[in-house]
């Protein structure tokens, strides 16, 4: 039986190649939304912060866990709204009839 750590290592390896492949064909005009979108995706840190706080048994753990939840939640909502706002503009400007 492979240990859990090595399973995770394989998952991480596959994720790294997936990330590279998915991103490598992105056109320059989408660099900002992509960066901002991946900024949102690492907001999954909120899940970890929730687990850390949820399992906390002492007050120092609770306080640090709480701060982590606040920061993670701001990362998630801020990252989402910023990306959505940027993409909304691309949507708008893309649909405009061509000038000239």
């Amino acid at each position, binding site marked *: 039986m492979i240990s859990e750590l090595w399973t995770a290592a394989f998952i*991480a390896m596959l*994720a*790294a*190649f*997936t990330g*590279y492949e*998915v*991103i490598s064909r*992105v*056109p*320059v*005009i*989408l*660099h*900002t939304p*992509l*960066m*901002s*979108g*991946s*900024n*949102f*995706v*690492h*907001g*999954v*840190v*909120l899940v*970890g912060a*929730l*687990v*850390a706080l*949820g*399992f*906390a048994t002492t007050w*120092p*753990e*609770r306080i*640090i866990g*709480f701060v*982590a*939840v606040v*920061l*993670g*939640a*701001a*990362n*998630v*909502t*801020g*990252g989402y*709204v910023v990306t959505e*706002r*940027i*993409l909304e*503009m691309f*949507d708008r*400007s*893309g649909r405009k009839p061509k*000038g000239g």
Partner: protein
Amino acid sequence: MVAVTDAIEAVYVLTAAFFILGLHRMSHPTTARSGIVWAGCAMFAAVAITFLTPELFANGATNIALMGLGIAIGGGFGYLAAVRVAMTDMPQMVAIYNGMGGGAAAGIAAVALLAGTSATEGSLAVTGGLIGAVSFTGSLIAFLKLQGWMRQKPVVYPGQQPTNLLVLALALVFGSLLLLRPAGLPFPGGAYLPAFFLFALGFGLLMTLPIGGADMPVVISMFNALTGLAVGLDGFALSNYAMVVGGVIVGAAGTLLTLVMARAMNRSVSNVLFGAFGATEEAAGTIQGSMKAVDADDAAVLLAYANKVIIAPGYGMAVAQAQHKVKELMDQLEAKGVQVKFAIHPVAGRMPGHMNVLLAEAGVPYDHLNDREEINPEFASADVVLVIGANDVVNPAARRQGSPLFGMPILEVDAAKNVLVLKRGQGRGFAGVENDLFYKENARMVYGDAQETVGRIVQALKKL
């Protein structure tokens, strides 16, 4: 109980899949908007299902109440700030949210280390904590510089790199002590954790100080990658595979973008990080010719009688918030039958794709936007190139051996028949290098705030 844990893991698997699909959709202009919605739904599901973790209820209601409160406070703040911010301030918003993710990753590592871990989990948590903490304070400095609350010029002092190295080494020493807990040392064991995070946070701060404003596209992408990596490492420590996948994908994507940005400046990432680029100014006096200024009316005439105009925007357009006026200018010129194109340098502005975002906000169709490789062969056939607040990315000094800019791929605007440069004053670009372009025979300077100047050109065009 087993069924609930299985359901949670199943949701995490789907979350990871939707993150990948979402990012994939974000890599095409037509599907990009649905991409963020897919990733958003996945994130919502993952956060919601985490509340159902059975062991949580064993720890009492306090923790669950704090979890809800934390989401309300952080989420509320993040939402309000992101809704209100102006498009021109996007680079610093991306930086600050990225920093918050790094801070959260550092916090998770701290809680795991406080609670006690196995040796393997502990070393993962220390590594994740170090990277997260560096990303946290580093992004904070980037935010302060971009927001204008701190000088954008590099902050340099003697012995800077050795100091930074020492701080990093101390962070590593305390991180190792934290893991090994050797007996017989003078300080109490409880001091290792705060000392470790203090030096880790300090290193992030110190290493970002000498990096200047124009290098921010590289730095922001790099901290994005680092936060992703920290989240992935925390995921290992917590055995949470949604975090492993989400974090590592961002780490890979961010690394790729960092390399693309550095390559666009023909510099290595380490040169960007440790070069303190732009801290010193090149000695003047090697350039022949003089700058010739014209006013907005003359510029308008030149533009109106052109067949083809290429606009090359830079950070100055963002600072002056001139993008809407630039769109108006484009409309006026197109109404007169002039072909208008935009030339976008990959590192123009302060984050990857900065100019594209601003012009899209103003409603410039994205088929008008061309990147450096597409547009460079076209400058020779352009009657007028309008440079708006760009400096280093159009500086022909990049072709001159010995210039600090040497080798940087630039927009070859000087090949055009006429070049109009909209510029606030006679100062140098960020790199502190005199711009050869301004002294060329075919170049004319139009001084003033970009928004005002473009506005005056539009008015003059309407009268023609």
